[in-house]
């Protein structure tokens, strides 16, 4: 066989494969996010758009801006337009139940992102407990190695949400696997925002500054705690700060400039968006999908963030090969149902 014939046959094979793939791709996906102004969702959308573009899918995004009525109306518009698949990040878990029924009646598959809803087909979400747990294990190892085996934790948490309670619980359970005597000195409600986290941490540190680990349920909380530590005139020697999320640029800046910020429980929002598109394609093709598709997370230690992201000083770009290589657990170690036990 001549090389020209081989080339022709290969080209035909590629064309057949491409057309077959295109035939199984949804043409249009509608995504209604709950709060597009948050860095997490901006990166989820970024991941969705990147993967949709790769697969030749047109994706339209609407923001509910934390308003369930707006979310329902945007989703109904998508159903009326006849999108092939609908992706939702529920503003309110009860509020979107009727929407799922309407979408089912219109034969439009629905992928949920973030939070589970009764009657759902599939959910793409991280395992919050596992995320905290794995970071806790790494924090324990760090404390054994660098902090004399002592772990006194200030948790800048958010008790309002089961997801963030699971992260904090996972962190302490993880740290206990390494240091059985680890103690939770302060368990705070930092409101999930940096100024509140700063304020409550300052008061807690004034009460008792005998801590050596600050854990934040998101990056803002960890940084609020750290800024309170710095504002109290304390040195970062002998301190470990652990953030969660890695949703924006804050954690990169912190790892680069704050000596104590050594661990980030990265949740890769871009990957969550990527996975949601994959789930949408599978549902469109009638494939069986698990009820919970886990999006991977990983504790990032110090400079190893560079393995997952490029950063040019203003924007970060995910390194898909590295993040796609992460293996998510098949099942979460604990979920919100375990908190009720």
């Amino acid at each position: 066989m001549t090389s020209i014939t081989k080339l022709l046959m290969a080209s035909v094979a590629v064309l057949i494969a491409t057309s077959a793939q295109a035939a199984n791709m949804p043409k249009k996906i509608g995504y209604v996010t709950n709060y597009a102004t948050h860095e997490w969702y901006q990166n989820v959308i970024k991941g969705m758009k990147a993967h949709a573009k790769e697969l030749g899918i047109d994706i339209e995004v609407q923001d509910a801006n934390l308003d369930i009525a707006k979310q329902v109306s945007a989703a109904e518009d998508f159903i009326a337009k006849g999108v092939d698949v609908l992706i939702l990040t529920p503003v309110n878990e009860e509020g979107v139940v009727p929407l799922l029924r309407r979408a089912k009646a219109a034969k439009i598959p629905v992928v949920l992102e973030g939070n589970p809803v009764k009657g759902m087909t599939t959910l793409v979400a991280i395992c919050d407990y596992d995320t905290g747990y794995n970071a806790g294990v790494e924090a324990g190892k760090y404390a054994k190695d660098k902090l004399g085996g002592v772990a006194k934790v200030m948790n800048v948490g958010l008790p309002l949400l089961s997801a963030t309670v699971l992260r904090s619980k996972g962190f302490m359970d993880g740290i206990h696997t390494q240091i059985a005597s680890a103690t939770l000195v302060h368990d705070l409600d930092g409101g999930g925002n940096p100024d509140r986290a700063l304020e409550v941490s300052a008061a807690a540190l004034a009460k008792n500054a005998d801590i050596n680990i600050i854990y934040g349920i998101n990056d803002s909380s960890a940084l609020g705690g750290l800024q309170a530590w710095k504002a109290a005139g304390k040195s970062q020697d002998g301190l470990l700060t652990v953030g969660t999320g890695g949703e924006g640029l804050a954690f990169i800046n912190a790892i680069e400039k704050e000596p104590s910020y050594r661990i980030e429980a990265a949740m890769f929002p871009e990957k969550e968006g990527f996975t949601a598109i994959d789930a949408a394609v599978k549902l469109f093709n009638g494939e069986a999908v698990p009820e919970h598709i886990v999006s991977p997370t990983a504790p990032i230690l110090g400079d190893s963030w560079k393995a997952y992201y490029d950063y040019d000083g203003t924007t970060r770009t995910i390194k898909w090969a590295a993040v796609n290589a992460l293996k998510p657990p098949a099942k979460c170690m604990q979920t919100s149902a375990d908190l009720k036990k």
Partner: protein
Amino acid sequence: MTEILRTGASGRTSLASLTGSGQGVLGILLVVLCLGISAAAPQFYSEANIIAILRQCALVLIVASGMTMLVIAAEVDLSVGASLAFVGCISMAVLNATGSLTLGVLAALAFASGVGLVNAIVVTLFRVNSLIGTIGTMMLLQGGVYLFTREAVQNHHQLASFTALGAGYAGPVPIPLILAVAIFAVCAVTLRFTTIGRYLYAVGANERAVRLSGIRSARLKLVAFVVTGLCVGVAGLILASLMNAGQPTAGRGFELTVIAAVILGGTSLSGGSGSLIGTLLGVLVLKVIDNGIIILGWNQDLQMVVPGVVIILATYFDLLRSRHHAR
């Protein structure tokens, strides 16, 4: 008019008048709170905790100083929280671009006073009620900050002088506290001992009478709005310094804390009466409650509940006292 001015100027503080006033009650409440929390948790009166409380008071006190002048003039500004976040982002962006603290500070003050000016124009020129008008500005700023930046503006300049603004000390005293005291003193002197201050009381008490006597009430209100804006500019710089970033999500609910402190301090929302000493006490009471709940290890949800109850009770007792004096 003379009568109005006399009313405004008659607030000279003597021990007798203080104890018979809302401020006296507030002062006693503050002492009781401090003693009670100290008895239950001795860490409360540690040096570290006192500094933490005073630092937390500083931000609120700076903006509350301007807001007191505004409320005395019978106006209010609900955009201060949103403006606070925007100021932080703008100043950090300018600092990153120029590496100059002076330019960063000027940008923050220019932006915040510009917001104050816009509010003043909306209220005095367009005659929009300040409660509604500044809600509009608040929404503009909350949306606008996301047009400006979707992410927190990180500190790339690493200027030590900027970090000192929020986290630095002059001797044992935190720099934000020094700035707060200076601004408080300027506002207090202006309100108590200057013609503008007296006119502000007069505008709040009876704007029509003020206008009939040839004083431009709109111009006085404009001054109060711009001064409040400038105070937000200073507070925004301190907050950005403390957080080491310009955070578009910062300052949510900050306006309510500021207004709560002003009202708790005895300044009437209908204008014409109030004092900065009262505001200072209001700020201290709210922040001591906030701090005390953490020091005592109570459920943090009470940080919203308790000040709410305190404000309702304080306003109610103030109303009773006013009725009693009116008889």
